[in-house]
């Protein structure tokens, strides 16, 4: 998949490129609006990530151009200007998602996957993990023929997020940010992720030991999938 990253902060653009390359995306980076505008006019992309605050260009104008020349592309707005107004305007112009800075790279990737799934209507998204079948479309987890209904929405969110970033250690901060990121409160160091994982393990253990859900000592958790 081809991704165009339009981001004037070189430091961030570089990290985006490294990260996306790791996930096997083919990445091109523009540091200003003018060169991005040229690239949009010439090449076709699957994803266009636009920073709204460009020095030489109004990010929304760029979005308009992108929608014209690359109508199939999935556009995600990255911005530090978190005003509601921009949010509405951006989505009205056809942006597929909106990610306020600072965001986690993992979050970006999870959004990109979610939109792909939505856009191309991938059929039943089933993953088998040691006998547990995780249905990402219907958001249920089952063992054999029985659906495990005790798993809560939050718990499923955690499993799905770890599954999306399988074989990668996710820290408590990253997991917290994913499931509680939109809540603004004044806790900065809560360890409720541990409690959630404990609950998940307990619920799954009633069927079979979920060995694939690993604790990485001192760092975090990961779902291990043998490929």
């Amino acid at each position: 998949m081809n991704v165009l990253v339009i981001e004037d902060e070189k430091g961030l653009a570089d990290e985006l490129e490294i990260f996306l390359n790791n996930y096997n995306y083919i990445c091109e980076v523009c540091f200003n609006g003018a060169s991005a505008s040229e690239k949009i006019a010439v090449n076709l992309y699957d994803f266009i990530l636009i920073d709204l605050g460009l020095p030489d260009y109004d990010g929304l104008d760029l979005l308009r151009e992108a929608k014209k020349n690359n109508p199939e592309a999935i556009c995600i707005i990255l911005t530090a200007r978190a005003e509601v107004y921009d949010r509405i305007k951006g989505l009205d112009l056809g942006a597929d998602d909106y990610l306020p800075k600072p965001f986690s790279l993992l979050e970006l990737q999870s959004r990109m996957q979610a939109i792909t799934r939505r856009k191309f209507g991938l059929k039943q998204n089933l993953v088998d993990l040691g006998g547990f079948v995780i249905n990402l479309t219907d958001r249920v987890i089952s063992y054999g023929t029985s659906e495990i209904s005790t798993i809560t929405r939050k718990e499923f969110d955690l499993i799905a997020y770890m599954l999306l970033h399988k074989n990668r250690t996710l820290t408590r901060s990253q997991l917290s940010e994913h499931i509680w990121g939109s809540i603004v409160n004044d806790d900065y160091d809560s360890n409720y992720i541990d409690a959630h994982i404990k609950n998940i393990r307990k619920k799954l253990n009633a069927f079979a030991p979920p060995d694939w859900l690993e604790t990485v000592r001192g760092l975090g958790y990961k779902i291990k999938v043998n490929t």
Partner: protein
Amino acid sequence: MKLRTKLTLFNTLSKLVIATIFVLLLPTLIKNINQHYNDSRLLKQKVKLLQIIKTQGIKDYAEASYYTPLKEDYVSIDLDTTAENLDTIKNEKRILQGDTIEYRILSHTFKADNKKYLLEIATSLDAINGTTRPFQNIAFALLVGMILLTIIADQLYSNFVLTPLGQIIKTKLIGHKFPNFGSYEKVQTSTSDFEYLDISIHKMIKTIENTFQKEREFISNASHELMTPISILQSKIENMFEQEDIADELKTRLLEMQRILNRLKSITKTLLLISQIENEQFLKEDSVPLRELLQEIYDEISIRLQGKNIHYSVDVPENLVLIHVNKFLMFNMVFNLINNAIKYNRENGEIKVAAMRESDCWTVKIIDTGIGIAAEDLPFIFNRFKKLRASLKQDSFGLGLPIVQSIAAFHEIRVEVQSEKDHGSVFKLILPDSLIKI
């Protein structure tokens, strides 16, 4: 009370008081005038009579009295045998042909032909007072007419003169939602005070607007400037964390960095949110059943309740719907209150959320069995970055209640706190009826 009403009331009342005093005084006044006039007439008559007696001699007039057929006045000259000399005017009764009549009588003793005579010139009081009543009536009618005229004139003029003030209040003050003011329109007036007021208000609005504009710009810029470096750092740490050649010991330190960065991020995000709310950058167009909102919060927070084994109960009418609210903000407000109730609760404690109609308002109470707040700390709990001693051991930076307060103020919700140290707190949200549908 409006200025115009006050002026009208004062005008009317003051005139009524003056009129009443005048009406009360009128009879005495007219009586006095009449009497005075009459007395001077009697004196003139006396002088005239004495003149006549002097020239014509007393003989023809002595021992005689003269009166008109209706007995309204009389003149009498009698021999006076008493020793004293009289020269008075007073009211006295006299019997004339069987009728007792009250007269105003001038009595005067004089000597003629070596004899002492008493002269009496009198006018009946009825005759004097006969003119009083019509006088009084005319004066009264005139007075009422004049008062009515002046009240109407006052009213019309004060209406006219106060119109610009009304306009200033209507167009400049009422209906202007702080800090969004419209454009300036000059109010037409020839009263320099109002002109000055209008211009002053306009200047103040401009200053406030400029300040707000600057603050908005500052927040927007500051957020951009802060968020971008945080974003870069976060991405760098995330990418480094994934590199395979990094030792676990280093990863632990990266994790530490990530946590500190998260703290910075949280503070920045929270401050931004508060400023955005205060700058009214949120819409209030959502409707959400309170029960549903509480359920969503419960889903997020149940893990924390579990951690302390807290008994949580909700007592909210099913059909209670919050309208004209921002759901995201309402969620965060109630979330923070319940989160606090958990944070400062004891093991096996209790939290109750109850909505009820209380003296004409809907209230939502969050009641906990936590450590409570000391009375001397209560006034400061909504201050930003204020951490009370009791909360120092918690991982928070003292912005939870400031969030609650700014969201509440944005929705015109009042927050009241009752707390007893070591027993628990009650946070009461008092919702205006405009936010409720039931």
